């Protein structure tokens, strides 16, 4: 195939992917609006609490029975695929989460559409990259383009899309990635602007921020960090609890949805993705008092954990924004109560800063939090407190929970392999690639005299011993093992190798992890180990070869 230049090709494909993922994000957005409008007349009826249950159950049935994918928001799956399999994603993921999250959120479940569109955009990118037969690194870039295009489109925020992708999805900033992903972000945003206008999702009036407000931001950062940790842990424990309930998956999702519906009767702010509530809070239209705001915060956290932890489909982006604005509001009312004489900035400003705090805390991605809030609120006038809240909140969360919400599970399983890290470099190598096959095998009934002749021909210190009939590996002989007999020719015809071989040698299997092998070598002070497959000696693996290949692989991974 004619390829003028790989960078140009990536930019071109990035734009296509940005447009497609932007359209996917818009499709979900429009479907959500349509579904919310369709169900609106039924919301006030006494049985309306079953709506989120029905939506979550249908969503679970769709995911598990029709497209046969698990629940969840999908972002960890994208990160996992990027870090381990060059961004390969299934085609079905390009639409599955859009439909399932539409059912969950549209019916009133507390979840967000952003993570599903990231999954969808990433899958679109992966499949387009497959079509163009791109290599792993290029495919990863295009997967990033899909994620960036989707976030840019849904928030009308191109920089946030770019930063989110680099900071959260790819975990690396390279020139090779930035340009196509930036193009995809622009394409995704432009699709959104053409089809639904250039709207700032949460526009607000000018805030006048004083030093006292900036100082108060530290307290807000602590509050948002605590709320982030609470949400993260509650989500995880809800998953564990629901996993123990002996119900089918769809019924579990329905139970969670029912509970959310029940909460929603008393506090409608917890229902759906909650963008309308955010607008109200930023504009200063939230009329209830401190207690209701605090209860609303806890209720939204609980509703989100019930929706997602029990099997509903959707992401945590939008609920985090709602919780953040509620935390900001509650905090503002609290400090006003404590120091009524201070002229604090409008509560809408704290709602906005709270959103940044929660996003930065949950994702442990401060830049994403800052740029997202700047873009979706349409101004840089709050940039200083925004930086303080985002940086402090993400640092505190990192201190309490070292891995972010998206990465926690991957880190626990040792499956997060970020570019340039030891684990990633070693995962791209295999034992079979590093085999040294120039060992001369010997048999147990060989005499020492014969063995000395073998030693003369070999340039290695290790000699595997194999069974003469079956060829099975029996043990190893090191040159040091024969040293006591070397200067005593009488022993040459008296000693068989069976008598001096070491049968309890540490071995490596072909499918062992190289990081584990390296750890064992260091622990036991070994420089090489035999590789045994199906009881047969396959070759030796040495620390020198391993580190040499490591260096070469690292160079490949870190060179643009």
């Amino acid at each position: 195939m004619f390829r003028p230049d790989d960078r140009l090709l990536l930019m071109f494909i990035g734009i296509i992917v940005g447009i497609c993922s932007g359209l996917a994000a818009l499709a979900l957005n429009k479907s959500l609006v349509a579904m919310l409008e369709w169900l609106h007349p039924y919301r006030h009826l006494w049985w309306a609490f079953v709506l989120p249950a029905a939506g979550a159950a249908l969503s679970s049935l769709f995911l598990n029975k029709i497209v046969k994918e698990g629940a969840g928001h999908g972002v960890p799956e994208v990160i996992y695929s990027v870090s381990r399999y060059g961004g390969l994603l299934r085609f079905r993921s390009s639409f599955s989460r859009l439909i399932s999250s539409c059912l969950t959120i549209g019916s009133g479940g507390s979840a967000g559409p952003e993570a599903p569109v990231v999954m969808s955009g990433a899958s679109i990118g992966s499949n387009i990259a497959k079509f163009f037969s791109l290599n792993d690194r290029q495919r990863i870039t295009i997967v990033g383009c899909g994620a960036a295009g989707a976030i840019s489109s849904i928030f009308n925020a191109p920089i946030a899309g770019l930063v989110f992708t680099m900071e959260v999805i790819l975990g690396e900033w390279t020139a090779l990635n930035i340009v196509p992903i930036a193009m995809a972000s622009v394409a995704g945003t432009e699709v959104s602007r053409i089809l639904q206008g250039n709207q700032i999702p949460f526009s607000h009036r000018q805030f006048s921020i004083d030093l006292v407000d900036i100082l108060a931001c530290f307290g807000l950062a602590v509050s948002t960090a605590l709320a982030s940790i609470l949400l993260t842990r509650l989500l995880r424990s809800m998953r564990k609890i629901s996993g123990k309930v002996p119900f089918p998956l769809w019924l579990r999702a329905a139970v969670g949805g029912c509970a959310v519906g029940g909460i929603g009767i008393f506090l409608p702010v917890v229902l759906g993705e909650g963008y309308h509530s955010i607008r109200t809070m930023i504009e200063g239209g939230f009329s209830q008092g401190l207690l209701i705001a605090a209860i609303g915060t806890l209720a939204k956290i609980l509703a989100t954990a019930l929706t997602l932890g029990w099997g509903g489909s959707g992401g945590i982006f939008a609920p985090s924004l709602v919780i953040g604005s509620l935390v900001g509001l509650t905090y503002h009312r609290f400090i006003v109560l404590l120091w009524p004489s201070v002229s604090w900035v409008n509560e809408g400003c704290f709602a906005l800063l709270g959103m940044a705090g929660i996003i930065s805390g949950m994702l442990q991605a401060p830049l994403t939090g800052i740029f997202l809030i700047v873009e979706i609120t349409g101004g840089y006038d709050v940039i200083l407190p925004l930086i303080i809240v985002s940086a402090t909140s993400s640092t505190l969360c990192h201190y309490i929970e070292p891995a972010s919400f998206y990465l926690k599970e991957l880190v626990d399983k040792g499956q997060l392999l970020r570019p340039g890290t030891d684990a990633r470099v070693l995962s791209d190598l295999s034992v079979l690639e590093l085999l040294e096959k120039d060992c001369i095998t010997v048999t147990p009934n060989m005499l020492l005299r014969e063995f000395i002749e073998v030693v003369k021909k070999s340039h290695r210190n290790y000699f595997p011993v194999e069974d003469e009939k079956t060829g099975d590996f029996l043990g190893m002989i090191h040159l040091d093992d024969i040293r006591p007999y070397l200067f005593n020719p009488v022993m040459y015809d008296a000693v068989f190798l069976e008598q001096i071989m070491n049968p309890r040698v540490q071995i490596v299997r072909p499918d062992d992890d190289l990081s584990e092998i390296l750890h064992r070598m260091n622990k036991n002070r070994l420089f090489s180990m035999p590789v045994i497959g199906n009881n047969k000696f396959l070759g030796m693996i040495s620390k020198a070869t391993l580190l040499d290949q490591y260096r070469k692989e690292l160079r490949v991974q870190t060179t643009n």
Partner: protein
Amino acid sequence: METQLFHIFRNTPLGRETLLQSIYFCKKIGASPAIYIPKFTKFLMYFENDVVQVDLDESYLTAPNTASDHATELLLQGGFNPRFLEPKNYTASTLPDIPTNFDFMCCPRSISDLSSKIGLGYIGPRVRRIVTSARFPVLISSPVYKPWKSITVFFGGSANAVKALRLGCRISRVSGIPLDVFTHAENRNKEVYEKIIQKENLEEDMALYADKWHIFEKGTFEENLYEVPHDSLVILGAFGHGLIKDIVFGSKMEKIQSVISNNLLIVGPKYTATT
């Protein structure tokens, strides 16, 4: 290097037949079976440029407490040390990743439908995807255990057919079982096929291993399939003509598998053949 065949074990009578077939195949070619006893009805296989989700039917999860014992018993009877594959990585909590660095893989004709639906003339879409993406040939076993006494390679001159012929020669060499080559001449004479063999440096292998080269110039392809011995391992290349030609004229693989019930060893476009 150790040759490995990947086998997904189904703890049912049909699964027993399939495992017996895999064990027989391994014994003949000197491979060792790597057995996977699924704990979930789906798994992923990440290939070089594709990811295939394999959806198993519920019968693969039958009696999990006896599955390992049943498989072990059959493997020991076949003279193999049982080796079970435990997935190390998971894309999602119920979605394990299965490695793809095997030399062969055994599939029933479909791995996503109940056995009652499986019959001749049907190869499931997942099996097709695996054949298309894998670097290894796929063994599609006959519905019942059927030891094979000869090897039949379908050679139509395509790139994949050449790979199939190389694989046939290799298996004949390793197993000592005679090899027959079948060619359905499609408006071409024998010389054309001989030139292809010559060009691919397969003359020597043909002389050494091929017992007979049947070239059919009359009759339809389906009619001539009757000449294939019922107890022969059939090796053929698949999806070698490109998508459009396969859609317009139909795939040879689909025709063959819908007519004969032999064990099929299918070589896909990504397979890198060695003799």
